[in-house]
């Protein structure tokens, strides 16, 4: 048995939506170099929908694959739905992660939440209660 599922390795080897959005509507960075994983998410939001998303990750394969999968899960989705994304959903979409690697997928959820928070802080009227 390999350490990771085929899906994790696929997203790790060919990460989707890698990069930066210069005029992003929301940006969120989480993690720190001390623990070994840092993730940065850039969101473009139009009409209450995430129209584009890009990420940058410093971290293990689990962190890279989680960010990649998370961007696929939220691209084109309404903000109200994106807000409800959980790390569990990300891990499941990747056909699972080793237990001790679950914390890396939490970062994807947190980075997106933080990017949304950034967006809401600039557009308080859009905040969903």
């Amino acid at each position: 048995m390999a350490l990771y599922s085929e899906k994790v390795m696929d997203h790790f080897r060919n990460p989707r939506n890698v990069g930066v959005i210069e005029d992003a509507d929301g940006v969120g960075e989480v993690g720190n170099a001390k623990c070994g994983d840092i993730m940065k998410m850039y969101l473009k939001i139009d009409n209450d929908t995430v129209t584009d998303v890009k990420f940058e990750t410093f971290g293990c394969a689990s962190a890279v694959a989680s960010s990649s999968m998370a961007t696929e899960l939220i691209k084109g989705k309404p903000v109200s739905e994106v807000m409800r994304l959980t790390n569990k959903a990300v891990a499941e979409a990747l056909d699972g992660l080793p237990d001790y690697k679950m914390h890396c997928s939490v970062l994807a959820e947190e980075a997106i939440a933080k990017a949304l928070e950034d967006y809401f802080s600039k557009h308080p009227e859009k905040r969903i209660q």
Partner: protein
Amino acid sequence: MIYADNAATTKMSSAAIAAMMPYITEYYGNPSSLYLAGQKAKEAIERARESVARCIGAQPREILFTSGGSESDNQAILSAAMIGKKQGKRHIVSDPIEHHAVLHTLKKLEKEGFEITFLPVYGEGVVRAEDLKNAVRDDTCLVTVMYANNEIGTIQPIGEIGRFCRERGILFHTDAVQAVGHIPVDVVKDGVDLLSASAHKFHGPKGVGFLYAKRGIPLSNLIEGGAQERGKRAGTENVPGIVAAAAALEESAAKMEENARKLSALRDRLICGLSEISHSALNGDAHKRLPSNVNFCFEGIEGESLLLLLDDKGICASSGSACTSGSLDPSHVLLAIGRVHDVAHGSLRLTLGEDADTEDVDYIIRSVKEVVERLRGFSPVWRDLTSGKKPFIL
């Protein structure tokens, strides 16, 4: 595939495999039994003991076969602590880059009231004899310093430490797991009282090792039971393993000079090639170093990702990153030589095998360059560094 993780374990040599076979297929008797099949096995163990002893300058009766490096480390340190305790001495000197088999045993002793002093290893990862001289006290019962480090490959001034300990009448243990079979080790010349070795690091089998204990040093048992190994290590002997360990060491010792010369040249070529990667640094002293060891930090990337992409290119290596170990902290060795967390996560250890050639080394250099560049390409840390938002460390 290029196997460049020989510090983790090595491939068994054909000599070792051939040597063990008769003791699996034919002379499988219990060495404690009286009939011929048992006595043949017993003789084989004693021949192995002589051979291993010769390779490190010891007497056969000073060699105890164990299950490997960890067991040897545990028994050596706990035995020395027991001797110290009886004399009212409860102080031990060591260093922070020891293997966990040593560090965790010391931690256990600390809980039992022993005091441990850790010598500094400085940026080069090498202890200094002057520091040892200042650290020992009247109640010091043991100095334990590894012969060579498993992560950064640095070789410690063992002879100097041994002579000093001998003068002061302090027991000296060295974890020589990474040294035996690779660089010259002589327990008499080095003034060593206790030494640990492990067969799978010199092309022998896993789960076999030995402990050298200078004649007259009373050992405490970790395993109680039968009278095997002069009553100091109970349990029916791993005959095939012991025989194979000795055969592997004989061969490694015979080819040591030739291998070391060849490997050091390849190592330096690899170090030179990887140094061309910007914002990188070699870990550990460049000269006081095992012939096969290369260890680098690359700023802005994380080690596990690096390893997996190298694996895709057919290169087996290892890293001191936290995410490869499942803990949150990167390697204690890299932290001890002053690498900060950010940089320690991006470490790569390559330990070459004797069958490596310049073509392999050049392929490794090309591959590492490619992979580092790729990972830096989507690293937010690298972006912050290159945009000037954060200062480079390396």
